[in-house]
């Protein structure tokens, strides 16, 4: 299994023969591909939930590969990017890598090298998807809390005792205990440490 469900390799190159040959190469290793003749066409078809990796030719009429990269960064679409170039030079490569490209491959390339890089990218994307779904799960659990329970949780994460929480929120210690119980129950955590880990996951700062 080299690609997760929903993952695809997006090939963006104005040269039809390059596009088609790449498609042939990936299909030979059973990797799904989608091809686009220009950056504009790709952006038009782009789905926010698209997964996989991008193979972008640097030089295209209209929007160039580097510009497309910038647009994606702006739209917070964090698909791994491999830049392809017929005559890349150092400043262009530096620019592309700075903008977050995973690799910068010069044509003609060795098929194995390209496949290795693409597989790495797909793995990275998969992990990113997993992290994202974990974060989503944690966030969903925290979202179940009432506003008052959320307040109590924040103070629990800070390590405050029930007594301190009751005086901070102006409620009885017994009520605080009830809220604490509800927080643990709703988030499915068994200790404050677990609760902290969960909240950090939800914020995306874990790992």
């Amino acid at each position, binding site marked *: 299994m080299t690609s997760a469900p929903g993952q695809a390799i997006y090939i963006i190159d104005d040269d039809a*023969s390059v596009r088609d040959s790449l498609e042939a190469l990936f299909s030979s290793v059973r990797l799904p591909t989608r091809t686009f003749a220009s950056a504009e066409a790709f952006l038009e078809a782009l789905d926010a939930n698209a997964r996989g990796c991008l193979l972008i030719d640097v030089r295209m009429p209209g929007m160039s590969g580097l510009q497309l990269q910038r647009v994606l960064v702006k739209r917070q679409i964090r698909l791994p990017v491999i830049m392809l170039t017929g005559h890349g030079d150092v400043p262009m490569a530096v620019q592309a890598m700075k903008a977050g490209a995973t690799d910068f491959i010069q044509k003609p390339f060795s098929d194995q090298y390209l496949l290795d890089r693409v597989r790495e990218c797909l793995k990275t994307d998969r992990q990113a998807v997993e992290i994202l779904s974990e974060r989503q799960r944690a966030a969903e659990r925290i979202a179940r809390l009432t506003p008052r329970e959320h307040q109590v949780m924040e103070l629990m994460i800070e390590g405050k005792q029930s007594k301190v929480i009751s005086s901070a929120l102006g409620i009885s210690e017994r009520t605080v205990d009830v809220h604490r119980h509800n927080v643990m129950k709703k988030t499915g955590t068994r200790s404050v440490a677990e609760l902290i880990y969960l909240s950090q996951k939800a914020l995306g700062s874990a790992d």
Partner: protein
Amino acid sequence: MPPGEFHRPPYPFSPRGDFWHSGLLLERHTLSASVQEATVLIGADVEYNRIYKQTRRPPLSIAHSGSAAPGSLQRTVRVSYRAVLLRTLMLGSLFSAILGALFFIYYRAESSHLRSLLAANEQRLIQVANQTILEEASAALSDLRYLSSQSVLRKHVADLDADAVQTLAAEYKVFLEQKRQYDQVRFLDVHGWERVRVNAGADHPEIVPLTGLQNKRDRYYFREALALGPNEIYVSPFDLNVEGERVELPAKPAIRFALPIYEEGERHPSGVLVLNYVGSHLLDKLKLLGEVAKYKLWLLDADGYWLLGPTRELEWGFMFPDRRQSNMAKIFPEAWKRIAAGQGGLIEAGSQVMSFVRVFPLPSQPGHAALAKPMAADRYSWILAAGMDESVLRAQAAAARTKLLNAYGVLAAILILLAWGLAIISVRSRTFARSMEKVLDHVPAMIAYVDKEQRYRFNNRIYEEMWGATPAELYGRRIRDVIGDAAYEAVRPHVEMALSGKQASFERRLDYRLAGPRDVRLTYVPDFGDRGEVRGFYALTHDVTLLKETQKRERQRMLEIAHISRLHSMGEIASEIAHEVNQPLSAIMSYSAACLRTLSTAGGAPETVVKWLNAISADAKRAGEVIQRLRKFAQRREARPEPVDLNAVINEVVTLLRGETLDRGIHVALHLRQDLPPALADRVLIEQVISSLARNAIDAVAEKQSGKRTIEIATRGVDGSVEVAVSDNGPGIPAELAERMFDSFVTTKRDGLGMGLTISRSIAEAHGGRLLGRNNPEGGATFSLTLPTTQP
């Protein structure tokens, strides 16, 4: 100030090193707003005409006046009225003074002439007066002789009876009736008794009756006459008539002529005939003469008493005891001394000059008895003096002066007009000369005139400063002596050419004594005389050192750019080939890899097919390596990004292309944003891109057969990047090329390689920028170059 040096305003350039770099400096000067100092002198200089037209006011107030007469200044000069006034005053007073001196000399000569004229008149008057006296005196004497020779008297002289007396009285009466100049005729006997006496009377002579006769025995004239011999006549002094011991008043001047009458053979006289001459008769005649001639006529006796004098009071001083002092010897002692010593001449009496002559009224003529007592005729003398009355003299002199002054006034006015004219001419020419000198000294060129003996006859100030010579060290010196042998050898053939009548223009590097070695452009223009002979030549020398250096730098820079551009183009071509070839190569490799993988998963392919597919891959790879090596071999210049002011680059490009745009009548409009942030780019490469775009635009509009040919270059900042847009109003981008115009070897130009836009775009991309081209809705095309700024 040392002689020969003129006052000059401070010179704007330092004498050493970086000064008056002709061409360039001239241009800078003339383009600046301060054209007042600018150039007029280089007549051929078109710059002048341009300035003249621009300012509409000639610099330095010098203008071509067009139709001036040959030889005169062919320019108008603005003169200072103050200077003209001063000069007019100066010249006018000088002229007036000279004229005044001349008039004074003339006046002196005239007045001395007048004096001599007066003196001559005086002399003439005196002669006439003298003649009158002589005539009167001789008439009196002859009358007396006539009376004495009357027969009645002769017959009866010894015993004069009553009849005889009566006859005589009647005779005398007749006589006096005719001769009114006599007052009395008397005959006295030896005892002094008047025997006959006839008075002239008021209207008619009266015979004095017997009772009226008196004894005159004691009177001096009787006694003097009685002592005389026959035919001797006593002439009394000119004096006043005395009646009974007192001077008769009103005064009656008289001269008594007395003649003793002798009987034949008698030794003693029988009586005395006395003829009283009325002195006023003579004096009135003299007075009249004087009045007619407007002279003062004086008659003095031998002792200096006036008989006819300046005033009535001064006359007859000797007759009155209290007026003895009324004597010329007392009043004008100096004059009198001269009169007493001489017979005639000039004397000064008081304020007047008088001519005088000693008059001897009693002539001693041959045939007549000698005259007589109390002194001989040659000693009986008066003095006649004539002089112009002082007031008349003064009036005459004043009249002469007035006439002269009037003439002087008119002439002086004419002279002042003349002075005014001269002042205008001289101030004008001086002002012109000064302006000219100023212009000559400030023209950024060396100007000189050299005569045919190769001697400097004129030079401007810069000439002196360049050679480090004083004016005296240049004027009249030979060229060789001034500029030295080495420099002379360099210019000599041209000097000779100019002196043979041909204009010489050439460039040399000369080592100036003060300014050091300079590149100069020299022009020698021969100066022809009226008969076409060469009199010398005008030398105009421009310093072109800076211009030359600039040109040299420009050339070097152009070479450098060309070199870089060539290298870059090679790199770009290689790069383009690499790209173009790499695309199919990579497709080949991918396809063959896909084949291999597909075959392996399909389970068993013929071994040979796998081998061949691998060979395809390897060969494609090898081709890629060949391309890679080619690219490395033509390694293009490494870009050197730095902050670049695109506006400055555009200005430079436009300047470089000016010749082309002017030639083809293309209008270049610049719309450059002054607040444009600097681009981060390699200046040389970006200049190449802009230059290439501008050239394309020029070529595009040059195709237009009609209408205005316009190129527009605009700059602006677009969030985080800067954009240069080069537009033209040419035919635009052909539709069939719109997609491919940035590809290599695509061109619309007959002799184009089709790399310009390709290279330009690759340069733009190498900078992280973009190069786009599109057609304008209103026609023509716009290419826009976008580059990152230094602030990301």
